[in-house]
């Protein structure tokens, strides 16, 4: 099917099942649908020191640029693989453990294209889309900004 890219940057939650239905709606040519959902954990995997429990995750974003950066990443994926529908949803604002943060879905005639496109989009999203996470321990008003990981930047090299 002709390429359709859909991007949402939103405070509200989303329903992964409903997103799947939108990817599939009247799409009879793409036999493959790959999806990724990222969720909030209730701990921070400290690289050194003790693991911290996290009660609330606050996501800051750069309005305008967040949408355009995600659109650009989706377009790059569509240039590399034959994709039908590409959908990215990224939330901002306060989130609780278990909440969905991000959804990436891609349809294609070929499963490897759909799977690779999702992985590519997530890798670039993590290092190129303007979102920042701040973690709050239970009962704490003083949050900690999550530090970027070198492994995320390294992950781009495989593409």
């Amino acid at each position, binding site marked *: 099917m002709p390429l359709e890219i859909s991007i949402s940057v939103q405070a509200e939650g989303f329903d992964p099942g409903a997103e799947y239905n939108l990817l599939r709606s009247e799409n009879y040519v793409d036999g493959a649908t790959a999806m990724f959902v990222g969720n909030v954990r209730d701990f921070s995997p400290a690289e050194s020191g003790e693991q911290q429990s996290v009660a609330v995750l606050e996501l800051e974003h*750069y309005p305008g640029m967040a949408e355009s950066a995600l659109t650009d990443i989706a377009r790059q994926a569509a240039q590399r693989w034959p994709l039908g529908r590409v959908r990215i949803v990224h939330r901002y604002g306060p989130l609780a453990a278990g909440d969905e*943060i991000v959804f990436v879905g891609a349809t294609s005639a070929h499963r490897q294209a759909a799977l690779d496109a999702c992985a590519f989009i997530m890798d670039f999203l993590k290092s190129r*889309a303007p979102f920042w996470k701040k973690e709050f321990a239970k009962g704490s008003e003083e949050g900690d900004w999550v530090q970027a990981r070198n492994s995320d930047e390294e992950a781009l090299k495989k593409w």
Partner: protein
Amino acid sequence: MINVLFFASLREQLGCEGLRAEATGITDIAGLRTSLAAKGSKWQAALASDQLQVALNQKLSSMDAAVKDGDEVAFFPPVTGG
């Protein structure tokens, strides 16, 4: 004027979400960064990070990019979304 924005930990360090900077005499982002750092020790410290990222008109950019009147320049730490 150049519309300057700050995000995340940088915004908190500066206690400032953004400002309008005089474009006269500024040719590139590095020059803008230098003039902002001259606002005081807090600004100098926060903008000195070699991890500092920059976007020009909402696209990731680099310190040597040219800027002109009317541009939007955002400074921020490495992103951590997803």
